[in-house]
């Protein structure tokens, strides 16, 4: 919050990533968010099917998946943002069950104790109002306070997220900010009420890499300072490697693999995770220099027409190598394991 902290954030300096305290926050106890067997369907279309995860204070869960994998739908369900959807299972936030909770209670939690930032900050900000007014409005929704105090809070938050001249910038409109600065404004708005959980849905996908690096540093810094629990939804394995403690890999609305980030990258066990990691070209000299990339054939399934059995089997190298066993096409593989959870009928070796 100090001005000097803000300044150093903005200077081009060489840094090593901040070491995050394991477990984080001063408050102890169970996970702040505990999701069990979450399913979401829209009419007859089931988009999320039995997903289980939890996040502790001070920790980051990365949810990785491609379009249609259900990663965004799961997180919107946590915030109770779906209309006309059937949500089953259990979502416990700080001891309170949210599935089936009255919408009034969810509204009180949303924006105050759970906050979310999205991929495109321009469509999440109102073009007509100044950013200071928008942050102040979000703050006053949850805190009884004067307009003036709320506006002060907005300036304070803009300073905290590293926006230079926060008092002047608070009086400007969203179009006067660059993409990276807008995402900082969204983060300021999300954090104004000091939430315990921040859900970030592809927050850096629309940004340039150098700006992405700034935003990821900002999220990591704020998380370390406040012991915030973060869910980072992304398709970028590099972003996950940079900031996540745990990783949940989703495919076709189900969990494919769920374990610690280091394990996912070092010893992936689900053929989809393995394929995904192998298909990404490297940045360093010497890796697969002139060879072909190891692509996964086919495309991700549509939730409208999911394949029977294991959703990944039509694209799975292990399924093909095992001469198309019937179990993969008939039965939905259960998630097995305690620390390293994998849903695969053919648990082969690690790669």
């Amino acid at each position: 919050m100090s001005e000097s902290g803000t300044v150093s954030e903005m200077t081009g300096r060489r840094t090593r990533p901040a070491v995050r305290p394991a477990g984080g926050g001063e408050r102890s106890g169970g996970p702040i968010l505990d999701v069990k067997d979450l399913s979401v369907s829209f009419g007859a279309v089931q988009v999320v099917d039995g997903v289980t995860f939890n996040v502790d204070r001070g920790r980051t869960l990365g949810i990785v998946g491609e379009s249609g994998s259900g990663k965004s739908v799961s997180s919107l369900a946590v915030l109770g943002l779906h209309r006309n959807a059937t949500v089953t299972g259990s979502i416990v936030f700080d001891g309170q069950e949210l599935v089936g909770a009255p919408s009034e209670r969810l509204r009180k939690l949303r924006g105050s104790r759970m906050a979310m930032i999205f991929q495109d900050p321009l469509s999440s900000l109102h073009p007509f109002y100044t950013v200071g007014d928008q942050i102040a409005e979000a703050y006053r929704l949850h805190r009884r306070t004067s307009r003036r105090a709320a506006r002060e809070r907005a300036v304070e938050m803009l300073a905290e997220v590293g926006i230079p001249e926060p008092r002047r910038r608070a009086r400007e409109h969203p179009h006067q900010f660059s993409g990276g600065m807008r995402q900082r404004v969204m983060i300021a708005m999300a954090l104004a009420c000091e939430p315990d959980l921040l859900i970030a849905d592809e927050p850096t996908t629309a940004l340039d890499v150098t700006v992405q690096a700034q935003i990821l540093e900002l999220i990591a810094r704020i998380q370390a300072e406040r012991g915030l629990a973060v869910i980072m939804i992304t398709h970028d394995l590099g972003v996950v490697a940079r900031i996540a403690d745990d990783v949940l890999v989703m495919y076709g609305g189900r969990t494919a693999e769920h374990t610690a980030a280091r394990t996912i990258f070092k010893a992936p066990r689900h053929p989809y995770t393995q394929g995904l990691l192998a298909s990404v070209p490297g940045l360093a000299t010497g890796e697969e220099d002139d060879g072909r990339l190891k692509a996964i054939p086919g495309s991700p399934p549509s939730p409208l027409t999911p394949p029977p059995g294991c959703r990944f089997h039509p694209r799975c190298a292990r399924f093909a190598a095992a001469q198309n066993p019937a179990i993969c096409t008939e039965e939905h593989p259960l998630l097995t394991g305690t620390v390293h959870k994998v849903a695969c009928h053919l648990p082969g070796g690690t790669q």
Partner: protein
Amino acid sequence: MSLLAEREARVTTDALLSVKDLRMTFPGRRGKGIKAVDGVSFDLRAGETLGLVGESGCGKSTTGRMIVRLLEPTSGTVHFDGRDITHLDPRQMLPLRSEIQMIFQDPFASLNPRQTVQQIISGPRKLLDRSGVIDLLKLVGLSPEHIDRYPHEFSGGQAQRIGIARALAPKPKLIICDEPVSALDVSIQAQIVNLLEDLKAEFNLAYLFIAHDLSVVRHMCERIAVMYLGRIVEVGHRDAIYSDPAHPYTKALLSAVPVPDPEVEATRERIVLLGDPPSPAAPPPGCSFNPRCHKAQGRCRVEVPVPTVVRGRQVACHFPEE
């Protein structure tokens, strides 16, 4: 100047595409021009892939569009196959249209939703008959029964394959690929990259590969040009650029890319640049990178650096990295 003259002499001999001092100034407010591309020069040999990388607004797509003449350059020249094509009129460009093709980022936006695959691929000039289109579909990994379908019936990866087939139909020598994989799912990107590489080997295609994903560019390209605010700041062989960057911007850009390995991420040095890229409407004086550069000194704020050869690549910096 002698450097420029030397390059000019080489250009006329063996380059398929040679771009010299290309500039594009868009009209801005109060008569102030926006210099989107500000003096870009490079050559591309037949069968070669040159990567053009940089962040949004650096002018990489504008450069590509000037080469295919979707935009009229403000100044500079474009030579293709030894011929100056900078100011050809549309009728004169027509035969060249089949030699220079383009693949776009958003496959759906670049395919006519009211045309079938056959109509799209055979093109307005009906270059191919039905069996020719089927051959092309097979070549890009689609099946013959797709021929009478419309773009909305395809996934993003399949639609991009149609876009590639359309670009291949007139048998081009050069394809400008403008972010061809960045709108696709991660598992599909590798398929399209492999397809582009196979086609290049089969037809001896040259690619100008415009992208912001540095790992894909490293995989695809022999030579890479890094752009910043309308200028090329560093150009050279892939290995020189990636393992030993000489321009501070290249170095910062590479260090900002997240690597899918938590152990590397936890230990590697990262240069966090300050602020955003400046607007091309109000570029800083001197070296355009100086406000974000950790090495910037007095000279950088007044004098535009001239490209010089440092360790086998060209770099435009007063104080290149050791």
